[in-house]
């Protein structure tokens, strides 16, 4: 299975972790890939850049975003609760954590993971006999 597919298929044991830390919400994430990298986009509104924690440890990439608690008054109508965000993903074995970059702007966190060399598509030359 290609590493990118592994990434999309196996979010790390979310259910048990949620029991240990019930105060986190799971943010919406888009996962896509290009030839050279895998891109994750996390929607974390209300989170400042300084309040994002990203850890890549063993096989797991964990993202935590802490929101500023703000009181706006009495609630009249509420479609979303305010809370901190957390969502881990499983990384393929051969990803180098130095090759992970992250950018946070306007509540949108973009993480780019450069694919290990052997996962990049290679053009194969046909050498005729």
């Amino acid at each position, binding site marked *: 299975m290609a590493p990118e597919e592994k990434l999309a298929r196996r979010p790390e044991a979310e259910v048990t972790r949620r029991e240990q830390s019930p105060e986190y919400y799971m943010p919406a994430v888009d996962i*896509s890939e*290009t030839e050279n990298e895998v891109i994750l986009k996390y929607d974390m509104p209300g*989170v400042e850049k300084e309040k994002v924690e990203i850890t890549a440890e063993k096989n797991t990439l964990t993202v935590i975003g802490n929101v500023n608690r703000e009181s706006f008054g009495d609630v*009249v*109508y509420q479609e979303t609760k305010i809370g901190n965000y957390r969502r881990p993903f499983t990384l393929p074995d051969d990803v180098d954590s130095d090759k992970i970059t992250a950018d946070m702007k*306007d*509540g949108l966190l973009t993480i780019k993971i450069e694919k290990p060399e052997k996962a990049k598509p290679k053009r194969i030359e046909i050498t005729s006999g």
Partner: protein
Amino acid sequence: MLLDNWNPFFDVAKTLEEFDRVFGEVGHPIGLRSVPRGTFPPINIYNQDDKAILVAEVPGLKAEDIDLTVLGDSVTLKCERQEQAAENERFYRKERPTGTFTRTVTLPDSVDPDSVKATYNNGVLKVQMEKAQEAKAKKIQVKS
């Protein structure tokens, strides 16, 4: 938490949505539930004595791309969130809603459109509106 504003289905919907993400369909670029239930962007409305505050969560936009209109007690929010895919980009999981969104909500009272202050920070649009004169509570003298 205010019990009279508790929506009994809110927690269920949110939990189901989160379960969808955990157990989402394997191998498909678009999962079982690729968009959150309900509408986007999620909106909360708050009431203070003389002000109404509307908060919408929509990360990844530019302030000038948000179209906000206020008329009487109604607020209309229009925005577009398009993701430009790179030429060879393939999607494996798409949970973030994209496209054009228009939402109209009704406030608890009429507001003064000239008093509207809107800010967009960290993906959160916050709109503060002063209530219109006739909607402000007046203290009534009780005469004996």
